[in-house]
Structures are given as structure tokens and as C-alpha cells.
């Protein structure tokens, strides 16, 4: 097998028969799909369908009971090969270190691995923050930021790694519609400017339809459909139809005073 190529800007992913149970309860039931280099692949589904668990397996935070995940044909279990790939996960909560300010959070990867001198790290961190439209926040602490700002700082922190694969866990959850649009645009901009492979987990239909090259629909630990936005929108599967058309309606039986 060829040696990992860390110079490419994006990587392909192949997941084969991934299974995981917690306390005997299956959460992933044989997940299989592929993501092409530079693709924005959205995994959509209702809460509790196993989307975030799947992301944690891809980044290596969880170990599957069975099945394999390949990045450019190298198993993620091969730690030596994985050391050559740069991957980043943008957590649902942002997961910024509360004891560090924004600048220290964004430069953390470079600081801890001593990849650049301190002045260079500061310059890169400020550049990434400005790239995401964040000015004058570098000295603030995560507790002083709004939800949308936290998410953008988390994306800036991920960008510092210059990732070949970037994973987003519910990037628009807890955000108002306008902030959600901003985050969606950031993901698209990144895709255009950096050509990174992106996997986005979300239950936000608007975000998925706005950014996805392809969408996988996940339900109760299984992928029930994969396709382009148009294919998913017109898919005949009843669960997909119900998920995409779920809307708030006043209960017709409720009696008005």
C-alpha cells in the first residue's frame, strides 16, 4: 500500500460495515458509504439516529465494534498512517477551552506541537479569525462569546490545522436563522477557497440543501438513502418524506376558549 500523501488538500473516505453498540443497544448498524475528495457530504437525520457517534468514529474518538473506516485506503486504526493526515472536528458546542482566550484557542494546535514561533502563531490565528469575520474578539474568553461566534472560533481553530478533512457536528444547532445562514456560507466559502473534504452532520434541512453535494439520510443507526439534494427531496422512502415535510401545525382537536 502506498504511503500517505499529506500534501493533497483533500482526502477521500470509505466506511465499510461500521457497527457500534453501547450497553448492548446498537447505535450504528452496519454503516457503509464513500465520500469523494473535495466533496461536501451531509449526513442528515432526526436526533438520536447515531450521526454524532458516526463522526466520532471517523475522527478516532470512538472505536467500532466491527467494520472499517478508510482514509485514502489507509485504515484509521493505522496510527502511523493517520499521523500523516490532518483532520479536524468542529464540535456541536464548539468545545473551546474555557481557560484560554480566543487567540490561544485558535493557535492551540500550533503552540502545543511547536510548529511555528509564537509571533507567527499569533499572525496565523488572527488571519483565520479575520477570514471568518471575527475581529476584536481575540482577547475575549469563550464564556464572553455568543453561540454563533463560538462556532466560528471553533471553525477558525479547525482551519489552523489546515485540514484535509473537516467534520462538522450540528454546526447550526442553537443558532438563530441568520447566524445559521452565516455558518452555512462559511462552510461553502471554505469549500470554494480551501477545497477541503467536508462531512456535515445536521438535522437542519435548509443547511443540508444549501451546502450539500450529496446527502445521506440516517435513521436509527442505518443509512436509508444516499443521493444528491434533488434525489433526496424526491425520494419515495416514507421516513425521508416525513422528515423533510415535518411542519408545525395547530392541533385541530384543541379547543379554543
Amino acid at each position, binding site marked *: 500500500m502506498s504511503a500517505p500523501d499529506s500534501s493533497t488538500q483533500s482526502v477521500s473516505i470509505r466506511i465499510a460495515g461500521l457497527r457500534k453498540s453501547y450497553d448492548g443497544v446498537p447505535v450504528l448498524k452496519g454503516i457503509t458509504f464513500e465520500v469523494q475528495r473535495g466533496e461536501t457530504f451531509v449526513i442528515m437525520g432526526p436526533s438520536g439516529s447515531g450521526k454524532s457517534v458516526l463522526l466520532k468514529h471517523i475522527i478516532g*474518538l470512538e472505536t467500532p465494534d466491527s467494520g472499517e473506516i478508510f482514509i485514502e485506503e489507509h485504515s484509521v486504526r493505522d496510527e502511523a498512517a493517520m499521523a500523516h493526515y490532518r483532520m479536524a472536528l468542529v*464540535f456541536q*458546542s464548539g*468545545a*473551546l*477551552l474555557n481557560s484560554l482566550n480566543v487567540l490561544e484557542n485558535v493557535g492551540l494546535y500550533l503552540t*502545543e506541537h511547536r510548529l511555528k514561533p509564537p509571533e507567527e502563531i499569533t499572525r496565523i490565528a488572527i488571519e483565520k479569525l479575520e477570514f471568518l469575520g471575527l475581529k476584536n474578539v481575540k482577547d475575549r474568553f469563550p464564556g464572553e462569546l455568543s453561540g454563533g461566534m463560538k462556532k466560528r472560533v471553533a471553525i477558525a481553530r479547525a482551519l489552523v490545522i489546515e485540514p484535509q478533512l473537516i467534520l462538522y457536528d450540528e454546526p447550526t444547532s442553537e443558532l438563530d436563522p441568520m447566524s445559521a445562514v452565516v455558518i452555512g456560507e462559511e462552510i461553502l466559502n471554505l469549500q470554494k477557497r480551501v477545497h477541503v473534504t467536508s462531512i456535515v452532520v445536521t438535522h437542519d434541512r435548509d443547511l443540508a440543501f444549501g451546502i450539500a453535494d450529496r446527502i445521506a439520510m440516517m435513521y436509527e443507526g442505518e443509512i436509508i438513502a444516499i443521493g444528491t439534494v434533488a434525489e433526496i427531496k424526491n425520494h419515495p422512502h416514507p421516513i425521508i418524506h416525513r422528515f423533510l415535510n415535518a411542519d408545525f401545525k395547530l392541533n385541530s382537536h384543541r379547543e379554543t376558549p
Partner: protein
Amino acid sequence: MFQNVGEMLVLLWRTIRALPHIVRQRQKVYDQLFEIGNASLLMACVLALFIGGVIALQTGPVLAERGLSSAIGGLVGLSICKELAPVMMAVLISGRIGSAMAAEIGSMRVYQEIDALRTMNINPIHYLVLPRIVAITVSLPILVLFAILVGWFGGGLVAVFNEKIAITFQSFFMNLRLVVELGDVLNGLLKSAVFAVVIGTVCCHQGLVTIGGPRGIGRSVTKAVVNSIVLILILDYFLTRFLLSLEK
């Protein structure tokens, strides 16, 4: 319980193996040293002053009745440096610093900050555990040294000003110098270094295995402090036996 002990030993072993990385983490060690010293020195000294005083108060009159008031210096000196200062400071530090360690690491675990470190290939043991265990192992013996000196002074004060004892400072410290040897002080410092490793390991481990929300963090802090104190008191007996066997 055995699973916890096993996990703590594994954590300690991994921390020892990470020791060569300590130079990289020196800034965090300085921060922790400042945190421990700044938070605890005054409290340690106040505690030691009164412990020395109460030992003198309890034993002085009894010794004085039997015409042994001159022996009080040695008794206070030995009991403080070999037993009371290391154990009481360890208990104080587990409550003051160990709880903070467990809470901080526990909250980082609950709010996915530790997962974020792992995704950046930053080893949480190097980043979080190593600086804390090294800092507490350096600082607790220093605090104990302060506590020993202040405890002796507290004992001396009571011996001088209590009318049932009423000996001079000179007599108190002459006897202390005759009885207490450098080895006795080193004995206490060695104990405190072992207790520091126990506090650091138990509290960092409890933080790392925290699950749930704020309630989980609270549970971890309680377990960390209680387990540290129980382990310190059990270990104290065996360490004392071991060190006494070396003296023979």
C-alpha cells in the same frame, strides 16, 4: 473499586512515561505551582500554628506534672515533622487543590474540551495531568516544610505562655534540637511527596472519568477528595512502618 485502582495506576504509569515532556509544559507547571502556593501557603501556616499549639497544650501540662516539661520540645517537634504536618497538609491540599483539579478536568471532560484536545493530537495526559502531578509533588513538600517550622513555633508559643507549662523558648528549642534529626524532617517530606502523587493521580483520574453534567462534576469532586484522604491515611500507616523499619 479494583478497576478504579487499576485505572489510576495506569494513569500514573503513563504520567511517569510522559516525564520527558515536562520541559515543554514548564509554563503550565509554573502556573500550577503559583496556584497551589498562592492558594494554600497562608492557610497551611495558620493550620500548622494551631496544630503545634494544640499538641503542646494537650501534652505539656501532663509532662509538666511529672517534671518532664523540658521534653515537650522534642515531643512537639517529632510529632509535627514526622506525622502531623505531612498528613494534615495532605488533607488540606486534597480539599483545596485536589478538588479544584477534579472539577476543572471533570468540566473539561463533560464539555468535550478533552475530546477537542484529542482531535488536535494533543495528549490530555501531557497537557493536563503531567503539569498538575509534577506541580503538586514539588509544592506539597515545600508547604510541609513551612508547616513544620510554623508548627514548631506554635508549640513553642504555647509552651512559653501557658502557665501550666511555662518553659522558655530556649529550653523548648534546645530539647527539640536534641531529639529531632534531619532524617526525621526528611522522613516527613518524603511522606508528603508520596501523598502529593496520590492526590494528583486520584483527582486527575476522577476528573478524566467524569460523566454527566454539573451533577457528575460534583460527584467526581466529592469522590476525588474522599478517596484521596482515605488513601492518604491508609498509606500513612504503611509508609510509617516502612520508614521505621529503615531506621532500625
